[in-house]
């Protein structure tokens, strides 16, 4: 069986660093941060942990329906989605994830655009 990015880069011990850094970057970002203004810290961290774990092939699974439902109340535009994609790719690259793996993760992320972006 092919090993996921999650496994190949050392499992949660390594991925946790990516999660916290990703969390920092999003909270500091003026376009993305406001989505989390009124959200409890524990919930945001929970969300980011599962989000990163899922994209990297870790122990989190969300169906397309679940993803759509979780984001249904948010006014997410294409620009927000693009920005998150950038932050994600930068974070992964800064943590030593190889370009082809970053590309793979970004493709996985990209696939879900239609589920969260409002027309």
């Amino acid at each position, binding site marked *: 069986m092919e090993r996921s990015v999650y496994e190949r880069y050392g499992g*949660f011990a390594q991925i*946790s660093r990516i*999660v*916290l850094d990703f*969390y920092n970057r999003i*909270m*500091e970002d003026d376009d993305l*941060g*406001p989505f*989390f*203004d009124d959200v*409890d*810290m*524990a919930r945001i*961290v*929970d969300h*980011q*942990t*599962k989000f990163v*774990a899922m994209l990297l092939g*870790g*122990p*989190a699974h969300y169906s397309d329906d679940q993803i759509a439902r979780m984001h249904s109340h948010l006014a997410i535009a294409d620009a927000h989605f693009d920005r998150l994609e950038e932050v994600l790719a930068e974070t992964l690259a800064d943590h030593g994830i190889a370009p082809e793996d970053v590309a793979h993760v970004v493709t996985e992320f990209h696939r879900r655009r239609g589920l969260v972006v409002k027309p």
Partner: protein
Amino acid sequence: MNIEAINEQLLRAIGVGVALVDADAFRFRFHNDTFAEWFGAPEPGARLGDLFPGLESETLQAALAEGGRFTTETTFKLRRRTMVVAMDVTLALDGGQRIAVLVCQNITRIRELESMIDSYSLMVERNTRELKREKEQVEKLLLNMMPRSVYEEYKTFGVVTPRLYTPVSVLTVDFVGFGEMVERVDPGVIVSELNDIYTAFDRIGEQFGCERIKTIGDVYVTVAGVPDAVDDHAAAVANVAVRLVRYLRQRNESHPNAWRCRIGLASGAVIGSVVGVQKYLYDVFGPAVTRAQRLRLLAEPMTICADPDAVAGLEGRFDLESLGPRELADGSRIEVWRMAELAPAGPAGLD
């Protein structure tokens, strides 16, 4: 720069929030830059309670009077980020003046890490539960293909060693006119009825320690003594055989399709092993199996034929009748016994 100035410089610059307040009214006397960055600079004459409305001065006063120390936690937003700060207040004396020293440590990162660990643990625990469920399903499937002790051996060693079991007893059963029934009756009905009947057979077999080995169409094979030894294996299969007949007789009374069985019993040696590399199947073969199959072919509908070894020691427990030496399908001749339940004392007899 003198030592006091250096100290003050240090106190201002460190990443810990420090403030000094008088221990009576809790008015601010000093605060460092980190403190001001987190909580804002206190106005001149401001009290601790002005910055931290949740901090009751009576509680603080009482704690300081009792142990000279008070600890608590506070959260606030810095930009949009929830900051968590641990506060520690201790009492100090400065030239006869009572001063409360407030030290604030930023524990935001610790709380974020704790949240992440909580999130991860829940994910992993859920996955573990799912894996356990899947493992149980696989185990259940494998247990359909082999006896539990064989499965345990397979799980531990990855292989199953073929074993000779002797003596054991084999029961095989099939149905008269099954081929004709398959052509006449709807396949769904056949399969459903066969399911019911085999399930009943399994239940009856289990009561006497028999292990169902396989079914091939309408042929059902069960054994007593494989893989776990059964003391009175011949009596076990005999008991099962008469109950299968009794079950079918009762069932046929209330069903449009009559299922009439033929049963062969034989005692002797068998080899038990998992056969196949990709498709595992636990199987038994050997003289006792072959003989039971051939004896079955000699049985009249709803009767049981057995070899001499299978009926040895059953006198008085079953109705036994020797049919004399008979030729089996391979041309060999052995004494064949017809076996049935002992007739009950009442008027209702057997077939």
